[in-house]
């Protein structure tokens, strides 16, 4: 009984720590004053050669849209190249990309053979890395649609030699398609407008999202590219960058649209991969983060909390069950007080690991009033995330037991519905 009580108190304390962290982020996003970013009309003085990698596996519905957009970007074309990695596509992705490559000299296509291709984004990116020549490398998913001056805005951060990578903001393109896309849009708002923004401003661990971001080629070569065994190659790279002594910067004004998953099945598949990958990263990096000499104390604390974020839904449920059991078995006086923390644990964990108030303030800052009405429905994604994270943990433990190293990469299907929203 005493052991259960200690476990319950520990969980309540951990969840309260997350709640405080996110409340702090919300306040920073609301009230932190920062210097005005350079306007898009200003020419950046720093214009290194830039390569954009677009890994694409069966993306025929969206590949033309992003390549067309690449031709419209305002970055000087003589310092710019686009590498499309046709990752063993069985549809017309390769052909469509080739047509663009014929018409635009700065677009190149790398084909991967079906015998060894199509096994996930990290492998495709590693292959693409052999073909790039730019000092700065950017990654865009095939379903993305960036602002015209996004490269200038992101590249400006690399003037600082300590900046190893940069991340822009992602906004949902097909938001009005379904309830799922609307909820994903809400999660993105909280995640980028508040969470990433605050972490950047506070000098904590800003996350490189794997797409709509870039890094120094010298750094990625030093880090030996992406690890194909990792399902969340972006989180893995983020921590490797920080452990190597570099920083990741977030640029809120560099905006890019993405096509969000449109149904619950796709949501489940995508989040399962993220959860499993993130947990892999937690197991791999947690000790290195805590003992690193390249990280400050606040970065270590934030890194620890960030690495464990996909365990939070499990902690919340565990606290809930433990609290109820303890209360029913032997309700002592202090139990009432601790039981109060259980609702808070739920409030702090709803949504994509951002509390509802963080999401709400993100929407407020973006001037989105109606979307706030959907915030209570984030309870649905939270319930789903409990199942997703539980399954991910079980899968990982089973693979540890059975000695299985490689996990299957589940690709998110993009059907190009987002194109309707582009004028």
């Amino acid at each position: 009984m005493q052991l259960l009580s200690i476990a319950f108190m520990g969980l309540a304390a951990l969840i309260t720590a997350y709640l405080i962290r996110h409340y702090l982020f919300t306040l920073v996003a609301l009230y932190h004053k920062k210097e005005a970013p350079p306007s898009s009309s200003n020419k950046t003085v720093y214009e290194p050669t830039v390569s954009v990698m677009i890994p694409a596996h069966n993306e025929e519905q969206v590949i033309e849209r992003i390549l067309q957009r690449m031709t419209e970007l305002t970055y000087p074309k003589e310092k710019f190249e686009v590498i499309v990695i046709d990752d063993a596509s069985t549809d017309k992705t390769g052909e469509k990309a080739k047509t663009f490559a014929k018409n635009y000299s700065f677009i190149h296509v790398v084909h991967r053979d079906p015998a060894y291709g199509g096994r996930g984004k990290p492998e495709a990116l590693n292959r693409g890395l052999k073909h790039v020549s730019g000092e700065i490398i950017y990654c865009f998913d095939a379903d993305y649609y960036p602002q015209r001056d996004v490269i200038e805005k992101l590249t400006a951060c690399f003037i600082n030699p300590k900046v190893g990578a940069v991340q822009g903001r992602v906004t949902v393109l097909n938001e009005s398609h379904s309830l799922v896309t609307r909820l994903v849009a809400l999660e993105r708002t909280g995640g980028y407008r508040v969470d990433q923004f605050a972490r950047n401003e506070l000098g904590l661990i800003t996350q490189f999202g794997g797409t709509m971001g870039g890094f120094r080629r010298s750094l990625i070569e030093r880090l030996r590219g992406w690890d194909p065994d990792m399902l969340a190659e972006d989180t893995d790279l983020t921590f490797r960058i920080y452990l190597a002594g570099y920083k990741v910067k977030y640029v809120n004004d560099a905006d890019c649209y993405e096509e969000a998953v449109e149904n619950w099945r796709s949501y489940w598949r995508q989040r399962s991969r993220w959860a499993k990958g993130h947990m892999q990263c937690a197991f791999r990096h947690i000790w290195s983060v805590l003992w690193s000499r390249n990280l400050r104390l606040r970065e270590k604390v934030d890194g620890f909390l960030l690495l464990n974020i996909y365990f939070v839904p499990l902690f919340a449920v565990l606290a809930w069950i433990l609290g109820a059991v303890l209360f029913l078995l032997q309700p002592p006086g202090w139990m009432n007080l601790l039981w109060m923390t259980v609702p808070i644990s739920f409030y702090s964990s709803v949504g994509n690991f951002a509390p509802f108030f963080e999401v709400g303030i993100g929407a407020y800052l973006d001037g989105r009033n109606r979307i706030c009405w959907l915030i209570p429905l984030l309870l649905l994604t939270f319930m789903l995330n409990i199942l997703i994270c539980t399954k991910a943990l079980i899968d990982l433990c089973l693979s540890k037991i059975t000695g299985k190293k490689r996990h299957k990469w589940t690709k998110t299907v993009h059907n190009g519905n987002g194109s309707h929203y582009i004028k």
Partner: protein
Amino acid sequence: MASKECRLGHLGMRPNFFHMAVGSVLVTTIIFLHLQLIRKFDLPALAAIGFFNLLFLFLLFPLEGPLLRKIVLLIAGNHVGALWYIIQLSFEDAFLFLNTDLFKIIALIAKPLIDFVWIVAVWSLSLSVLASYRIRMERLEKS
């Protein structure tokens, strides 16, 4: 309080400390009233009400918007909370009359979710009211 910073969007806003001061007086009064009203000093119910009021105080009162609107929203929200609590109590009494603790156990276990429903819904609606006000003011300034 449409400061220059607010209009620029990318810069931080300044919290409205006067509204927060008024809000803290109101919130203290409301919590005191709840302490008097809530039966048997029901801590979880009081915690939910307290959490809602603090949420309002720290994440709605400092935002842009007329003070009167914020006060009305806070009082309306507390009424919803009290109503929610009364409904729960009436169910509890009904089941007690039937001589079963079943509802009490279910209510205890489901409490986090039950409280979540009203707190988040009321707070989100209130936030959307303030967001609408902010958008309207920005449009007016632009025009």
